[in-house]
């Protein structure tokens, strides 16, 4: 099985620590990945709302490159990229008009997408393919007594993904459990973090992040883990401001699930990008 890897813009910038920790964990598990050559931005959700045609085309370009590069599966860690990829694949699979039009455009650069390369989220790969037992075997420092709140955000498992329960997802809980930690059961696992509203409509955006942080804390969580760069950014970077503004201390470490895994697997903190986090003082001691 040849795995390709599509980082997307976030994993090269604000979510750099997601990339670093993901690659470290995959390496530890013996999974080799090859980064997609000359990839482009997926357009995120914004482009889809502005011009669906162009949005499908730029995502399909990445899929076309993946097919040309000869992979079986392309790993897409960012929740927004992952949804955009799945949406493009679904549209090209079920709408022959869209497929033909998009492929016509791709042909100009010698590319086409025919559904050969499958799109995979790392959570799917780790939990459904490798399995929790295989993950447990790699643990060097079990995260005993650590209570973990898994947070998926709104677009990772809905509406297209099928690898997890759309209403009560559990793959990150499975991982937390495999690492020796205790997942907390809470109902806001896939509630929206407000996306970019923290910058555009700050009051509402902060409020939406507040309820998530507050609920995770009140359920007794020591840490929130996530798989979305935007969620991680919102929940982590604004928590100081939220706590001051709403006069309620909701500060809690928010890390990528891969960072949590890396800690349990005994990977040194600096190889997990923990130093790049904005609130390092909150990182587990």
């Amino acid at each position: 099985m040849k795995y390709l890897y599509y980082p997307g813009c976030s994993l090269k910038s604000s979510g750099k620590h997601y990339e670093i920790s993901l690659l470290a964990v995959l390496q530890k598990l013996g999974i080799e990945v090859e980064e997609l050559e000359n990839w482009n931005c997926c357009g995120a959700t914004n482009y889809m709302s502005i011009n669906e045609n162009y949005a499908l085309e730029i995502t399909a370009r990445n899929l076309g490159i993946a097919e040309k590069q000869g992979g079986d599966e392309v790993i897409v860690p960012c929740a927004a990229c992952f949804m955009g990829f799945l949406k493009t694949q679904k549209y090209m699979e079920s709408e022959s008009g869209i497929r033909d039009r998009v492929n016509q455009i791709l042909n100009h650069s010698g590319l086409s997408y025919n559904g050969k390369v499958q799109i995979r989220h790392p959570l799917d790969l780790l939990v459904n393919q490798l399995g929790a037992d295989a993950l447990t075997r790699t643990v060097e420092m079990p995260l005993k007594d650590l209570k973990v709140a898994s947070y998926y955000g709104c677009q990772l498992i809905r509406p297209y993904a099928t690898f997890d329960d759309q209403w009560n997802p559990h793959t990150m809980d499975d991982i937390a459990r495999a690492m020796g930690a205790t997942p907390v059961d809470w109902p806001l696992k896939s509630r929206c973090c407000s996306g970019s509203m923290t910058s555009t409509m700050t009051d509402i955006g902060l409020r939406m992040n507040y309820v998530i942080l507050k609920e995770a804390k009140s359920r007794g969580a020591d840490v929130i883990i996530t798989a979305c760069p935007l969620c991680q950014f919102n929940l982590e970077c604004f928590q100081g401001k939220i706590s001051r503004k709403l006069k309620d201390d909701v500060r809690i470490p928010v890390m990528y699930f891969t960072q949590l895994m890396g800690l349990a697997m005994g990977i040194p903190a600096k190889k997990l990008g923990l130093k790049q986090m904005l609130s390092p003082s909150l990182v587990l001691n």
Partner: protein
Amino acid sequence: MPVNEEARVGFYICHCGHNIANMVDVTAVAEYAAKLPNVVLSRDYKYMCSDPGQEMIAKDVEVFKLNRIVVASCSPLLHENTFRTATSKAGINQFYFQMVNIRENASWVHEDKEMATLKAKDLVRAAISRVVFHKALEKKKVPVNPDVLIVGGGISGISAALTIANAGKKVYLVEKEPTIGGYMAKFDKTFPTLDCAACILTPKMSAVLKHPGITLLSYSEVSAVDGYVGNYHVKVTRKPRYIIEEKCVGCFACIDACIFKEAKFSDEFNEGLSKRKPVYIPFPQATPQVVLIDDKTCIHFKTGKCPQTCAKACDRNAFDFDQKPVVQELEVGTILLCTGFQPFDAARAPYYGYGRYSNVYTSLEVERLVNASGPTGGHVVLRDKSKPKSIGIIHCVGSRDEKTNKWCSRVCCMYSLKLAHLLKEHTDAEIYNFYIDMRTPGKGYEEFYDKLLNEGVHFIRGRVAEVSDWAINDHEKGKLVIRVEDTLIGMVRRIPVDMVVLAVGIEPGKDAQDIRRMFNISCSNEGFFLERHPKLAPVETFTDGIYIAGACQGPRDIPDSVAQAGAAAAQALALIDSGFVELEPNTAFITEELCCGCQVCINMCPYHAITFDDGKGKSHINEALCKGCGTCVAACGSGAITQNLFEDQQILSEIYGLLVE
């Protein structure tokens, strides 16, 4: 085009109001047909199926000396019989008639009038070239077996069985569960009169058992059906109870004596809210009142190492651990299917938290909770034994929903009102109903709704988004929070409650598809059994002699199910009392001189209608069993088999007519 000099064809094309005339140029088709060989007369008419339309045929036959009739109109399913009768009344053999369906096959399915007209002309030409070679045939009369099979012992099956048996006919009532009674037996009270379900149902159940005309085959399933209207052969598999039914008197001594001192297996009748033992009876009034052993949980069947304390406690020697399934064969003339429904599985609506939050219940579970003979003796308590102070009832779970089932289940608004009333009575809790629309058409139904409005029950209009235990203030702590858009005030609301009741909808039974195949009937898209006509033949099916009643045909409440059961019973009785059925003469027959006795046809026949006459060395077709499928005709290498209405000349001529202008 093939010509038969003696044939004088009268051709009629129907407008069917605008149904046909809007998309097919009927005048052009009539003018075209007039010029075809053998056609003496060609007319178009607004409604051929009307009395004047039919009388026109009779008049024309007399005046123009017609001896063949072709009508181009709707589906033969709907009106072939009408026009055959009209042909016969006009003094011509009814099989000198041919029908062309230019509605379902042309006007309704096309958008280009010119092409639709062209297609209609082709179809008409084919029918005219065929009809000239038709032969006079007679329908055969076969006596009807007066015995009736009813499948399903819910309220519909019970009502139909009693009606038919009271008319003096013999009824076999087959029920797959160990007891009859169906879902109604689980209900506490019935809407809108609030009379006790058991009080009105159990007398009927025991009447079924006592009726000399009814043979009750409980814990049994139909495994094969053969034959035709008036003469069905049915095989019923009787599942082993491991108890000899005739010997058991329902003293329950065996249940007390079971090696399991405590009941520990999920009790199906109480929707899993209580436990039962491996030897059990579903509920105290079960009919027949005979215990049974669940061989999946019984120690004897699992390990073979049980002292069989149950059998020892039985002073009537009713136990038989070696019982095997037994197949019983029945001969009946008519069959009523009353196989019912299944409630929507609430886990398919995960946003309401069923199975995740222990205080989320289905409506059927609550029926058992409010029932005096239920798992809590009629005390409404939650799984932690506390009494709910606030209850939310969510309507349309698995109904009127794009994601699950699109249809309205018809009964949920009313039973939700009933449960609201009963829960209020039992707990004095605050009750909230979350509805999309209140649908209360029915005698006394709207008045019942009105009564509930005055009882202080809250009604919030809006489809609930989710149920969760996410509390945002102290008031919500420890409660289930129902999030809903209240569409009457235009706001999202959060209603904290102690208990959530999901008003689950009605779905086709899980074995509906198997039953449909076995009895050779149709289903509508959603899986409910299809009636012959939604308005004019609501209990008949497309298979003669097989009728449907109750919720297997679509969601319906008890009064409607009983009414439909009566209608189905009346249809069966009408057929029985007519004494005979007429069979289509489209059967196959063997020309003995040509038959070489190779017997290839015998294995081909799916209906076992062909036998071999050893004396003559020829095959023979039993016309009463032949369904006219034509398989043997095609298989016969000697060309010795002919099928009425499908003779080579008729078919070839029809094809010629279709292809050659």
